[in-house]
C-alpha cells in the first residue's frame, strides 16, 4: 500500500502541491518578490510545518536530551506539566546563599605552615606587602588552595565559567574577584550550557565582576575591556623571540598566558607595580590539549615575568614549572612531579637508572649528585603536613596520658570546690 506524501502550500496565494520547503521559497521569490521568504506563518496558515514529537517521560527540571532531528546531545528544562520550557521560561538558578539544605561543598584549603610561608613571601623587606595578584584556574588539584581570605593580596583574577563552581560561586557573589578573563571567541562564550555553568553568557552580561578582559570590548558585555593584543605582543614578544627569518608574532597558548602578559604590561606602563603572581588551579596535565599545546607558551611567559622582577608562586604540588614524568599505576597512567629532572645532568639521568637499563658506565662513578644542599634554602617545602596535628599525634606513652589527666583533674578540682552542693 503506497503512502500518500504530504505537500506544502504557499501562505500568500494558497497554491498547493510543493514537495519541499525550497520549492516554496523559490515560488515566493518569483511570484511574490516583495514578501518574506519562509514567513513565520500562523499555525493555521501552515499546518504542514508543525511537527509533533513525543519525548520520553522526564522528571521536571534540567534534563539531558538527544535532539530527535540532529541527534546532538543537549539539555532542556522540563516544566511541571511535562512539557519543555522555552528559553524565557527557564528559571534562574538560585544563588548559593539561597540554597537551603543543598549539598555542602567539600572544604579543602592549604596547609597552615604553607600559609605562614605565603605570608612571609608576600612581604617586602620593610614588612609591607608586595603588590600581589592571585590567579585561579579550575583544576581541582590546587584550585581549593586559592587564598580567598588571606591578607596581603591586591587583586584576584579568575577565568572562563568557574564562577559557577561550588567552592567559587559564593566568593564571586561576595565581590572577592577583581577581574575576570574570557579570552575565547564569541561563539564559544555565548553557549548556554558550559562545563561549570548553566548560563555563562548571561553571567558575563551582568554586573558580577568590575572588569572582564576579552578579545575586544563587547557592547553586550558592559564590564568588558579589550586585551591590548598588538601593543602587548609588540612590547614583550616583538623582537625578542626570533624564529627563522623573522620574529614570533604571538605566543599565548592559554588564558593564563594573557593574564601574565597583562601583569607585565601594567608593570612596564606604570599602571600597577606588580611584584608577585600566585597561580592556583592550573596544572595543564591533560596530555593532548593542555600539556602539549597550552603549557609551552605559559611557561615562556612565566619565565619572562620572573626576569622582569615579578615573583611567581605555585602550591608545592602543582605540575607547572616542574619536571614531569608519567608512571603506570593500577589506576592508569598518571603524571607525577619528577624532582630528579629539575637539574638535568646533576641529578638525572642517574647511574642507578643506567645500570638498571644495562647502559655503559664510564669512569669516576662516585661523582654523582654533587649539588649538595645550599644554605638559605630551608624554606623549600616537600611533604606538607600540619605541624599542629603532627604534634598532637606525636608518639606518646600511656604514662603521658596518666600524668596529664592527673594534672588536668587537679586543676579542675579547684573549680568544683566553688560549686555549692
Amino acid at each position, binding site marked *: 500500500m503506497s503512502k500518500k506524501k504530504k505537500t506544502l502550500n504557499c501562505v500568500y496565494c494558497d497554491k498547493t502541491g510543493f514537495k519541499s520547503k525550497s520549492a516554496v521559497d523559490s515560488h515566493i521569490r518569483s511570484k511574490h518578490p516583495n514578501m518574506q521568504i519562509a514567513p513565520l506563518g500562523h499555525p493555521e496558515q501552515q499546518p504542514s510545518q508543525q511537527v509533533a514529537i513525543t519525548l520520553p517521560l522526564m522528571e521536571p527540571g534540567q534534563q539531558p536530551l538527544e535532539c530527535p532531528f540532529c541527534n546532538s546531545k543537549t539539555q532542556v528544562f522540563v516544566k511541571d506539566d511535562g512539557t519543555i520550557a522555552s528559553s524565557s521560561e527557564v528559571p534562574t538558578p538560585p544563588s548559593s546563599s539561597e540554597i537551603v539544605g543543598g549539598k555542602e561543598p567539600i572544604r579543602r584549603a592549604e*596547609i597552615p605552615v604553607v600559609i*605562614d610561608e605565603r*605570608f612571609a613571601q608576600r*612581604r617586602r623587606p620593610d614588612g609591607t606587602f608586595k603588590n600581589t595578584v592571585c590567579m585561579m584556574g579550575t583544576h581541582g588539584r590546587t584550585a581549593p588552595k586559592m587564598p580567598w581570605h588571606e591578607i596581603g593580596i591586591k587583586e584576584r583574577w579568575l577565568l572562563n565559567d568557574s564562577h559557577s563552581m561550588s567552592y567559587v560561586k559564593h566568593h564571586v557573589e561576595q565581590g572577592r574577584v577583581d577581574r575576570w578573563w574570557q579570552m575565547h571567541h564569541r561563539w564559544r562564550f555565548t553557549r548556554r550550557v558550559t562545563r561549570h555553568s548553566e548560563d555563562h553568557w548571561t553571567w558575563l552580561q551582568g554586573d558580577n565582576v568590575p572588569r572582564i578582559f576579552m578579545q575586544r570590548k563587547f557592547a553586550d558585555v558592559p564590564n568588558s575591556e579589550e586585551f591590548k593584543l598588538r601593543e602587548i605582543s609588540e612590547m614583550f614578544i616583538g623582537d625578542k623571540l626570533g624564529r627563522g627569518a623573522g620574529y614570533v608574532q604571538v605566543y599565548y597558548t592559554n588564558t593564563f598566558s594573557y593574564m601574565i602578559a597583562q601583569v607585565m604590561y601594567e608593570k612596564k606602563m606604570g599602571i600597577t607595580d606588580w611584584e608577585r603572581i600566585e597561580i592556583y588551579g592550573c596544572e595543564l596535565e591533560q596530555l593532548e590539549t593542555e600539556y602539549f599545546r597550552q603549557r609551552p607558551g605559559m611557561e615562556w611567559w612565566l619565565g619572562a615575568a620572573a626576569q622582569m622582577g615579578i615573583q611567581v608562586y605555585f602550591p608545592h604540588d602543582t605540575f607547572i614549572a616542574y619536571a614531569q614524568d608519567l608512571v603506570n599505576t593500577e589506576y592508569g597512567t598518571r603524571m607525577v612531579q*619528577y624532582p630528579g629532572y629539575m637539574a638535568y645532568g646533576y641529578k638525572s639521568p642517574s647511574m642507578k637508572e643506567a645500570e638498571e637499563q644495562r647502559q655503559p658506565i664510564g669512569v669516576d662513578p662516585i661523582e654523582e649528585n654533587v649539588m649538595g644542599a645550599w644554605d638559605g634554602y630551608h624554606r623549600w617545602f616537600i611533604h606538607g603536613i*600540619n605541624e599542629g*596535628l603532627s604534634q598532637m599525634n606525636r608518639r606518646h606513652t600511656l604514662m603521658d596520658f596518666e600524668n*596529664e589527666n592527673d594534672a*588536668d583533674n587537679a*586543676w579542675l578540682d579547684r573549680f568544683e570546690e566553688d560549686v555549692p552542693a
Partner: protein
Amino acid sequence: MRIPVKGVEIATRVVKEIKGRAADQGISLPYLVAMIMAAPDGDHVDIGSLFGASAIAVALIKKELGHKGKVYCIDPYDDEQRLKQATHTEKIEPETLSASPEELMENAEHFGVELKLIHKCSHPWPEELKDATFVTAYIDGDHMQDAPWNDFENLRGRVSHYISCDNYEEEYSDVVKAMWKAMNTDDWFLYYKTLTFVALRRVLPHRSDRTAPFSLLSL
C-alpha cells in the same frame, strides 16, 4: 586534645600571682596553652587582655618552649564598655574589670615577659597591625552582638594556625553564634571545645591528598 602538665603549671602560677582578675579564675588557660603548644614559631594576638592573664600564659609557654614570636594585646581599656559586659552576667563584679594598661604592663614585668599593647578597640582593626599576621589568636573582647564575629572576620585572613575564643557557653549567645558560624566557613574548622573554651583550626587538605603516593616522587 591533650592538656599538657606544663599548661596546668603555667595556669596555676598565673592565677596565683597575677595582680587583678583572671577571667573565670583562669579556667580556660590550660586549654589555651595547649593550643599554643601545638602551633609553630610566630606571633600571637590576644583580644580583650584586661590584666593580661591569657596573654601572659601564652608568653610564658612560648618562652618555655623556645617558640619565637611576639604577643600582642588589643584592648581599649574602656570602663563603660566593660561595665556593659559585666552587667550582662551576674557572676562578674564590675569593680574587678577596672584594669588599666599600666596594670597589664606591671603584670608582664612581674612574670618576666614582653607584651605589645595596642590600646584600641579590635574593630575596626587597628591600623598599627594592618599588615600583621599571626600563628595564633585568642578572642575574649566584646562578647555582645556582632563583636565576636567581627573579631573573627578581622582575624581569619591573618592567622595561619589557630583562632580560639572564650565564653562559648549559653550565657553568651552572640559568642556561640559567631563561633558556630566561624567553624562552618570554608577556611576554618572546629579544632576542640573544652568547658567554655573553643579553638578553631584552618581547614586542611584532605588526608588522602596529604599522603597521596603520586603527589611527589622521591627520585
